[in-house]
């Protein structure tokens, strides 16, 4: 029982971090993106390869993922962040599809659709975190750190500019600030956080494949951030908690495992539609 609760908590922590990455971009800066799944996957795969194959330390694996994600996000952002919202969204969607396609096709690196197995759990002070109840403490710690980062950024001068951009880009530009540069900072920060979530996921599950980082993960992440409340510090945690725990009740109702993933996605999509209907004038309060 404890292992099951710890498992839930770990998932909440992972997806709360992913939701934070969405929130920084959408909730605080007002930029919508569908690439979270790709950055999550980038973090997961780089961790899997660095730690699983090359035996580096788990911290190095996570940092590698962050660096790769931030770099990829900047490469993506440089030509496209100055475009209008819809176009930028399309570019991120294309990027997401590219990532999935690369994950499937670069067999020598990613082992294709079969995925990478045997990713080891991290070791803390020489002690490997095999059981869920031990791992959850690390996960909660990591989430805690990220939450503090979010709070600090939000109340910092950078945070103020992000919020200003969310409200009125043109005004910010007219005051002489480079909107594009600031958005790039937010975007790369968001990508790095998403990759952390991916790394933790990889080290927890021990297995990663292309399907765990597709478009639906991006939509799920959006759903968690939006349902939880955009722009609020507690939002991502609330959204992730709800959306991780709610589908668990499906088990008790008797939905078979093979359907569970699809039903979960339908639930997330439904929540998005419901929230949109209840707050038509903007998903922020």
């Amino acid at each position, binding site marked *: 029982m404890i292992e099951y609760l710890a498992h839930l908590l770990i998932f909440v922590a992972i997806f709360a971090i992913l939701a934070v990455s969405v929130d920084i971009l959408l909730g605080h800066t007002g930029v*919508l993106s569908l690439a979270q799944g790709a950055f999550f996957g980038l973090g997961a795969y780089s961790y899997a390869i660095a730690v699983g194959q090359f035996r580096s330390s788990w911290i190095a694996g996570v940092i590698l993922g962050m660096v790769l994600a931030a770099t990829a996000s900047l490469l993506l952002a440089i*030509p*496209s962040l100055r*475009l209008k*919202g*819809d*176009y930028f*969204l*399309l*570019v991120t*969607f*294309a*990027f997401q*599809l*590219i990532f999935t*396609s690369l994950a*499937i*096709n670069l067999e020598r690196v990613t082992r294709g659709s079969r995925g990478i197995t045997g990713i080891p759990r991290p070791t803390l002070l020489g002690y490997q975190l095999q059981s869920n109840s031990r791992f959850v403490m690390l996960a909660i710690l990591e989430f805690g750190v990220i939450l503090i980062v979010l709070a600090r950024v939000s109340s910092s001068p950078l945070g103020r500019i992000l919020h200003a951009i969310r409200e009125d880009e043109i005004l910010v530009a007219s005051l002489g600030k480079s909107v594009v540069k600031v958005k790039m900072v937010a975007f790369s920060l968001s990508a790095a956080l998403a990759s952390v979530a991916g790394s933790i996921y990889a080290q927890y599950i021990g297995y990663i494949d292309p399907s765990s980082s597709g*478009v*639906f993960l991006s*939509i799920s992440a*959006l*759903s968690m951030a*939006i349902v939880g409340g955009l722009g609020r510090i507690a939002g991502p945690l609330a959204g992730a908690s709800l959306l991780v725990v709610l589908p668990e009740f499906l088990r008790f109702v008797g939905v078979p495992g093979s*359907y569970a993933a*699809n*039903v979960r*996605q*339908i639930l*997330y*999509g*439904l*929540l*998005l*539609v419901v929230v*949109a*209907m209840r*707050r*038509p*004038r*903007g*998903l922020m309060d």
Partner: protein
Amino acid sequence: MLQVLVNAVHDGIIYGLFALSFTLIYSTSRFFYFAHAATFAVGAYGAWIVLSAEVGFFAAFVSGVATGALLGLTAELSVFRLLRRRGAESRTLLIAGLGLFAIIQNFISLFFGDDVKTLEGFEMKVIEAGSIRVTNNQTFAFIVGVSTLCLCLIFLNLSNLGRSIRAVGEDPDLFEALGFDSDRVILLTMTLGSGIAGLAGVLKALDTNITPLMGYQTFLMATVATIMGGIGRPLGAILGGIALALVEHLFTWSFALHWREIFVFSVLIAVLLIKPEGLLRKPGRL
């Protein structure tokens, strides 16, 4: 080489249909309707399920189109119209559309399973003309596709309803101010557009297989084609679709197939950076 061109034109017509339907919806409803990607698959599955009931191909074909249209109609009436009436901004509509996309796609997976299905059109016969080989299904798609595209263009340019659609796309406030009902036009466009998307899905299914995710890549192609042709330009979208298919087939003929997305992505970035208003010059209204 000629074979590559023939295949490209076939795919291009499907992209063109999908792009046309998307640009119609985008210009009238004024938001990026993501669930359109799912409509493609819905059309294919709608045809498949009727075909499995052994009612004949024609019935299956019509159901595919009808299912697509029905989806658009329902989505507009139950979600988007309500949202617009409550003053929703386009981002909210977009997010609702994303939610719908997730719901519909997963419903398809749930209901039909993720396995690959086939849509048996005509009994597969290969027609050889010189160095070119075409299946009769491809010929069918070509004929149906081209006719639909022509009918649409005629409708959009010559009929009153068609002109209303273009009017709403250009200036919705003026349209309303003149006393016309834009809600009705939007409903029509959504239904018609989704029907065409369903049609495109059926045609695609005839050529390749049916999987729940079949809409994704074609959706990306269609949206890039729309941008290439200029948003709100039906002819532009069609030509964009064909052009994109041509370049895509030539590209994958020289390089490997799975670099396709990267290729499309590069085209997208290039167009957006260089000429975001579309590659067609402005000859007037089309």
